[in-house]
């Protein structure tokens, strides 16, 4: 039977601006998916530019792929499928939301965005 494991790499993370998940060792796995979910309640439209990074040692990082997740009312969960990533993975990037939403968050009309991020691995 194949091995599988879902790691929670961010739990209720208050990402705003640059972020990076902690290094995750994935040498035993041949395929992976990063899932990112915007937790309710929060701003309705949030943009996340992301890079999936790989590393030989968990210290030095190089970009494997990149893209943008656009969160809105209909799309609170995004994913990126991966293979051929070697021994280490992390997700980094930048979270941004509109000036109006930022004002609403600073006045506590809405909560700043909070995220769950998962790394689902399979041998």
């Amino acid at each position, binding site marked *: 039977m194949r*091995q599988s*494991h879902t*790691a*929670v790499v961010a*739990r*209720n993370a208050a990402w705003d601006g640059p972020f990076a998940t*902690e*290094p*995750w*060792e994935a*040498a*035993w796995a041949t395929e992976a998916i990063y899932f990112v979910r915007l*937790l309710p309640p929060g701003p309705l439209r949030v943009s996340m530019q992301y890079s999936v990074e790989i590393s*030989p*040692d*968990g*210290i*030095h990082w190089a970009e494997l792929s990149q893209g943008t997740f656009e969160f809105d009312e209909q799309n609170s969960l995004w994913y990126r499928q991966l293979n051929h990533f070697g*021994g*280490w993975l992390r997700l980094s990037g930048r979270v941004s939301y509109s000036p109006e939403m930022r004002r609403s968050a600073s006045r506590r009309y809405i909560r700043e965005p*909070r995220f769950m991020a998962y790394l689902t691995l399979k041998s």
Partner: protein
Amino acid sequence: MTRNLPPALDLFDPLDRILVHDDFNRGMQGWTGLVGNYEDSLDSMLPEYADLRDPMLSNLTVWDTGTDGSLHGNYAMKLATLPRPGALAVAIKRLTWRVATRIRWESIVTFKPEASELELSNTDVRAFGILLDLQDGDRKAHPHRVMPHIRYLNADEFGRMEQWQYKSTHRTVHDIGGRGETKSHFHLGPDGWNDLPNGGQRLCYNEIATKHNWYYLRLDFDLRDMQFREFQCNNRTYECRDIEPIRIPAMPNLWCMLNLAYFVESNSTKRAFLYVDSSLLSTDRE
């Protein structure tokens, strides 16, 4: 008596009944992260629990010599903290017990800081340790939840300490949320640790941050009187009958709980790592 066991088992000295033998070459086997209790929102958990990091499978790869592997194969369970002083990572396995008897928990572990600087780095890990989270059975008069904690204080802000410690006291138990159904207390803080009698022990750190030497740990605890018996690390055995575990009134939904946990704490702006090659839990045969 000579037992004819494979090497991965023969390095342990189990009691008569082996309940669990976790060799992490076979996967995580029920070991997972510890999350603070919450109600309705993750925001309701105690803040100390918010940044605990979950365990992963590691092949002990380092930048200068590549992959070490584990003691009997490729993989160990790795606990990795955030890179800041006082950051913690915890791995927990949750069981229940069926007979109140003596239990023995043995482990093969090693600890190191992240090798991000070409320095000795032997004070970058503050501590690593083990704990049990236990509760009496539901028929016992005056039942308790009992939490034996033992840690190796490797270093603090003043330098190397190399001291085994235990914890007998606990912080306030808080109600979580507004329904009165969930409680939480943080028991891994820096407060309340006492030195184990004669508990100074120098371990093999081995010079640089990328060399891993495995250590043997053994904790004997008795579920009948919920008291420590003995603790062993490598060549040293500590008589523990006179030290008290954390003891609090029983909680309404934890009967016969038997949880095992490992933890590691950073002492610097580097990640602290605890690797567990394997873990074995055994009991007397009733």
